[in-house]
């Protein structure tokens, strides 16, 4: 017979750490529940004991740390959408949050949940990748900082130890003159899981690209940075020829699969097209200026 799962609902971070230190492997952490409860409803979640962290307010909130924003792990998508700091300094994260589920999900789903759920299709993740975010990870043993782009070690695998919790993301602000971009391709605007999702940032120096970072989801076992394509673009003059080269390169750089949402061929083509859209926007923006 299955045991009835127990639920602990701590009120402080220290209580979370203590609970994780005591019985780490057995505890399933639940925040907004928008991923976990779907599995539970489908009976795909092993009977387990739950650590409900929803009431730990010290994990909420957005603070200005000068060149970066610190976003508490329990911050919901609705809070991100409404926050003037995020609108001003990480606009792609507002755009991403608005594409996640619909308002019912945005009111409950959290940034930390999206990160640790570790789905390659998590829509906030390409933004964190493109912005070179860092994660604050805590446990009774202390706090450490891990680069977001080194957090995933494989499909749904992360560097988190069993007694650790992601407590915040630290996201560098967009710089003056820097262009940022977010585009999700799904079956409809709301409630869809991405076929491909991309966020990018670029800084121009006259007609050439001084820096560019491209984060992509749903095209590899984890969210990825298109480092080869970035290397092609950095320092180069942005011309239609270069855009065409970048389109072909990124279509080969991603490693998508065919699944129920889309095909490998479609995902490669559309990744190239979405990058083209961003690069053309940069040219058109420069001409308009």
């Amino acid at each position, binding site marked *: 017979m299955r045991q009835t799962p127990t639920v602990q*609902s701590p009120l402080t971070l220290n209580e979370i750490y203590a609970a994780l230190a005591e019985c780490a492997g057995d505890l399933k952490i639940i925040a907004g529940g928008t991923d976990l409860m779907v599995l539970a409803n489908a009976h795909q979640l092993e009977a387990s004991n*739950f650590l409900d962290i929803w009431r730990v307010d010290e994990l909420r909130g957005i603070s200005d740390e000068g060149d970066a924003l610190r976003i508490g792990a329990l911050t919901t998508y609705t809070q991100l959408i409404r926050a003037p700091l995020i609108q001003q300094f990480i606009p792609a994260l507002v755009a991403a949050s608005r594409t996640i589920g*619909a*308002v019912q999900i945005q009111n*409950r789903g959290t940034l930390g949940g999206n990160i640790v759920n570790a789905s390659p299709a998590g829509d906030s993740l390409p933004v964190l990748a493109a912005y070179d975010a860092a994660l604050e990870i805590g446990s009774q043993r202390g706090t450490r900082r891990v680069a977001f782009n080194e957090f995933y070690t494989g499909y749904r695998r992360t560097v988190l130890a069993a007694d650790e919790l992601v407590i915040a993301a630290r996201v560098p602000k967009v710089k003056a003159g820097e262009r940022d971009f977010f585009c999700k391709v799904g079956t409809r605007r709301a*409630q869809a899981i991405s076929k491909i999702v991309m966020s990018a940032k670029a800084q121009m120096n006259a007609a050439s690209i001084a820096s560019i970072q491209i984060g992509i989801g749903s095209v590899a076992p984890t969210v990825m940075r298109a480092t080869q394509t970035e290397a092609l673009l950095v320092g180069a003059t942005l011309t239609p020829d270069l855009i065409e080269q970048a389109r072909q390169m990124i279509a080969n750089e991603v490693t998508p699969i065919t699944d129920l949402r889309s095909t490998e061929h479609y995902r490669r083509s559309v990744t190239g097209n979405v990058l083209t859209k961003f690069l053309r926007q940069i040219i058109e923006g420069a001409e308009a200026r």
Partner: protein
Amino acid sequence: MRRLLDVLREDLRLTGTKEGCGEGECGACSVIVDGEVINSCLVPVCQTQKAQILTVEGLAMDGRLNGLQQAFLECGGAQCGICTPGMLIAARALLEANAQPSRDEIKEAIAGNLCRCTGYVKIIDAIEQAATAPAQIL
């Protein structure tokens, strides 16, 4: 971990709130928790301690339909009825935050609520009509 939806329907016998998909896609189980619309199939009841919860049963006033419900009736915004409680609740959450929404804002507010009968136009009409007389809604 019991779901808020099951406690509402089974313990409290508030069966106006429906279960559709059970995975946060359809919005039939929408209720308002502390002012925010959520899917009650995805919320464990332990996270709603001391929260103020509004279900479809709480919309009527003194046994009479409120302005939002009346508008659904007049515009043909309800057909089979399974999505209606969730639609009403999503619309209520919208109108509390934005008393004069545009049609696009209405569409966005009900993007998480699926209806297979109406084609949505009459639902949007109903919410738009209700917004013209906010005093009879909130």
